[in-house]
């Protein structure tokens, strides 16, 4: 199968340097897989991304998008960048316009889309990133986290097929980081291919279906995370540490004399695998206009949120929410403790949540749930 993005013998030097920043890279990004590019600072992650949407041109070798070699003419570039969008690590490298909505409109306007369509896309992007209330705000008045979301909104307004995120959670608070990763999961589930770079191994491990590891400009591993982390020498030479979850599972499995596989990636998966859980139940409530009347206000039942739109609406309506962030994990954790829990989610996330519940079965927990639409 063709890779979504592929490079063949890609070599790149920064001006005035003798050692290549990218050295004969043959990478294949699989369509539909949550992909992470992992590596220490200076390993070449950002440089590689600049090749994916032709900000940088290789000194030798080729970059292919959907099987076709990239062309570097102006018109071809515009077409490519509407399909492959990069969210840079530092939002200040990306946010230029004076107001939030102007900044988001910049990309689609440049694509010569009809005004109506531009307007619609700006609305969607504002909504997806939870920035609607800030639309008229001056971009200089936004906090770092808000600017980071604005940069993302600008890319989303291009309706890209591939969204590349360079260190998306760097510098963010824990809640904001969770919020962003949930949004990435939501986008991915709805058909956007997400490739992200990070040196945060815990984040990478929880998220990735497939990882590509860079070390000093060379690609040294492509495949599932476990294959890489099971090789301590490689992990060490790459400048990272094994993820905490991987280590705990390995040692607990050893201690309990059970197999390391299946590999838990989340706390609820780990707990399912290691102890007998109780039976609670989860009520999934997709977001609707009358959401307030649907959520039972009971102290016995916890309420969590999944999805940016739901989070916005529940906060706006001042509803009592126990888990505004990390809602899925927290509600499931309550269910495993024998309690009842409500998870309010965006309408396009219901199947995603069902998939996550099915995934838990591999670790031994069969969560009872219903969908109340």
């Amino acid at each position, binding site marked *: 199968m063709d890779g979504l993005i592929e490079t063949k013998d890609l070599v790149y030097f920064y001006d005035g340097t003798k050692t290549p920043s990218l050295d004969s890279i043959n990478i294949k990004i699989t369509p539909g897989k949550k992909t992470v590019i992992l590596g*220490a*600072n*200076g390993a070449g992650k950002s440089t590689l991304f600049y090749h994916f949407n032709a900000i940088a041109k290789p000194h030798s070798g080729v970059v292919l998008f959907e099987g076709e070699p990239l062309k570097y003419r102006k018109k071809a570039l515009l077409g490519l960048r509407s399909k492959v969008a990069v969210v840079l690590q530092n939002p200040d490298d990306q946010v230029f316009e004076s107001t939030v909505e102007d900044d988001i409109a910049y990309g689609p306007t440049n694509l010569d889309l009809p005004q109506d369509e531009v307007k619609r896309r700006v609305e969607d992007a504002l909504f997806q990133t939870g920035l609607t209330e800030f639309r008229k705000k001056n971009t200089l008045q936004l*906090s*770092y*986290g808000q600017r980071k979301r604005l940069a993302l909104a600008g890319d989303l307004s291009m309706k890209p097929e591939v969204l590349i995120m360079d260190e998306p959670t*760097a*510098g*963010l*608070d*824990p*809640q*904001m980081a*969770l919020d962003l990763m949930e949004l990435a999961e939501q986008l991915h589930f709805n058909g956007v291919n997400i490739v992200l770079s990070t*040196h*945060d*191994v*815990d984040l990478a491990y929880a998220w990735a279906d497939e990882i590509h590891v860079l070390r000093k400009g060379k690609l040294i591993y492509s495949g599932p995370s476990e294959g890489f982390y099971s090789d*301590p020498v490689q992990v*060490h030479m790459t*400048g*990272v*540490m094994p993820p*905490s*979850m991987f*280590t*705990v599972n*390995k*040692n*607990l499995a*050893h*201690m309990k004399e059970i197999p390391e596989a299946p590999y838990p990636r989340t*706390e609820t998966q*780990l*707990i399912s695998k*290691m*102890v*007998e*859980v*109780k039976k609670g139940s989860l009520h999934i409530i997709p977001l609707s206009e009358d959401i307030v009347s649907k959520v039972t206000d009971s102290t016995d039942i916890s309420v969590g949120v999944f999805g940016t739109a739901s989070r916005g609406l529940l906060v706006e309506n001042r509803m009592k929410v*126990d*888990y*505004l*962030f*990390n809602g899925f994990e927290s509600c499931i*954790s309550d269910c*495993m*403790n024998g309690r009842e829990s409500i998870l309010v989610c965006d309408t396009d996330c219901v199947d995603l949540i069902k998939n996550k519940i099915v995934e838990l079965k591999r670790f031994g927990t069969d969560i009872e749930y219903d969908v109340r639409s």
Partner: protein
Amino acid sequence: MKTVIIGANGAGKSTMFYHFNGILKPKEGTVYYDGKPLEYTRDALSDLRNKVSIVVQNPDEQIFSSTVEEDVAFGPLNMSIERDEVERRIVTSLEKVGMLEYRERPTVKLSYGQRKRVALAGALACEPEVLILDEPTAGLDPQMSQEVMELVNELCLAGTTVIISTHDVDLAYTWAEEIHVLRKGKLIYSGSPEPFFANTEEVALSGLVKPHTFSINSTFESLRGRDEAPYPRTNSQLLAKLSTPDAKIGVIRMIPFDKEISEIPQVCGNIGIYGSRTRRAVRESKTRVDYYFNAIEGCCLDAMSGLDSVLVYDIELESLVRDTISVLGKFGKVPEMI
């Protein structure tokens, strides 16, 4: 006390630090050092800053000199310390952060992680009583973060009071004896980390999340019908707690490193190293090592899984290493140290 100031971006962590060494003067209220109110005269401030050093988050705000050694010498020279003593301090502080071989390098040619370490060396060269580190691991690779935290532990052992600010709850939980939580400019909690993290609502309102080890322990123990306390702060402590009384615990072979590295027994089991001197010696001798970073934890985890391991460490860190391993006794069995 190992102290952490924790809070979301914009909660006021850095602003508070700037009051601790008199960079900022409060509009109202008083800041005390050693029980005495700060004075804001030039002499008093320079005296204070010799005792209270801040390493800011972004090293570029702190590094001004053109070479590494000049930058590190800046503080001590300002304290009118003699040239010989300044030289000694340059060497020891650069050695501690692993940057001695870069002493003549231009600071502009360093990577972000290297600049961060030079900024730290500059603070160490003042030999402060209190060292304040603002987000010390932000932007660093996982291994480099470990190295910085190991160094911090060495400083604590040597008697320096270290205060760290961070929004990394996992780091805070593993390291801190006492936390102070800031939210929108208000101090909302001071004390040991557990009561704060147990309060789901307060944690959420502060823009934070619960540390992984904390929440895994809560769920495990509630399902097993056991007490959440004692609270494990590391994975090995969690494992010790979950281990059964008849489980086999591995042995940790302890090798204090003084001058020679030749005597590492090439036995089965993983080899870990701890301390900056050992790390340097091992790098030079190219000995096989399995845990270059976070080695005490690596060996403890092995022991909990029933595996023997070897731990080589700087001899002056003996008590720190033994104490860290012995903490496992609060949770379960302590591996035998031979």
